[in-house]
């Protein structure tokens, strides 16, 4: 499976689209700006949800209503971040794959996804018990705290990629 995945990456890196992004002076910084913008919205909005789970903000609103109003914004921004990120990735795939901070960032996003999945499978099931509580249960607070730490690390890794890739 791994060799075929590497072949696919090599194929994408050789594509005309990847070449255009690599060679064009305007395209890469523009995609990068869209990426930063969407990551900011992902992190800013997920922080609102996480702080509610930890019990530090929006406590007068039901947790369920914070989740249902904010998460669509998070997912929309995440879709844009994935798209812009993938375009940057294929323009220099081999270099990104050999960059430790890039690999770390992908793993951290994966862990954030697992953290979120566990929260939805475990804590959301008894959400009605603590929906209006100022002190959410420990499992919800842990999920929120982990998420905050993970997303801060994702942003840090993202910035460090720029300093270790030989591009800006």
């Amino acid at each position, binding site marked *: 499976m791994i060799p075929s995945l590497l072949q696919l990456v090599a194929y994408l890196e050789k594509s005309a689209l990847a070449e255009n992004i690599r060679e064009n002076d305007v395209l890469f910084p523009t995609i990068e700006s869209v990426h930063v*913008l969407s990551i900011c919205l992902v992190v800013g909005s997920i922080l609102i949800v996480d702080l509610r789970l930890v019990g530090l903000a929006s406590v007068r609103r039901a947790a369920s209503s914070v989740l249902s*109003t904010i998460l669509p914004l998070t997912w929309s921004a995440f879709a844009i971040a994935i798209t812009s990120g993938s375009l940057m990735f294929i323009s220099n795939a081999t270099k990104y794959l050999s960059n430790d901070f890039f690999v770390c960032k992908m793993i951290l996003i994966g862990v954030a996804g697992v953290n979120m999945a566990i929260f939805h499978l475990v804590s959301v099931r008894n959400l009605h018990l603590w929906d209006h509580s100022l002190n959410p249960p420990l499992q919800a607070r842990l999920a929120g705290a982990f998420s905050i730490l993970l997303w801060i690390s994702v942003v840090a890794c993202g910035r460090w990629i720029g300093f270790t890739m030989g591009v800006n």
Partner: protein
Amino acid sequence: MKFAAYMSWLSKWLASTALSQTIQTSGWLIPTLQTIHILCVATVLSSAIIVDLRICGIFDRNEPLQYIARRFLPVIWPVLLILLLTGSLLVVAEPHRSLQNSTFILKMGLLVVAVAITAGLQASINRSSGVLDKNNFHRIAARFAACGSILIWCGIVFAGRWIAYTEAG
């Protein structure tokens, strides 16, 4: 003294300070400051955009605008102070990269406009309870301001990234 000549003198002087030397040569301080800067941008941008979207009637319409503004706008001001602090340190570290860069000047100009619109919206929402939801003229004016605010905050993030790609003059 002309603006460009003054900026040139200022960035030479800043670059010669001990603080600038320390940040420049540490290797990890600049990315750390940039990471804090981006996290603060995420907070300010998301808060401002959520209130702007609510003014435009797109986000969380069941919740009164005043509650949403009270939840999200106050946090902008202390975080903006951290942004000014980390931003200033980044300027001190590499003054030539920013002070003599037209994109950086543009970013600062956009920031002044964004801050003015956000402060104006916050003041008028606090002053007039519910009027932006009821009065037609006020609602349309507020929607214009909110759309402008979204565009300008996004422009600030774009300009921020483009500083790295603009030739310093």
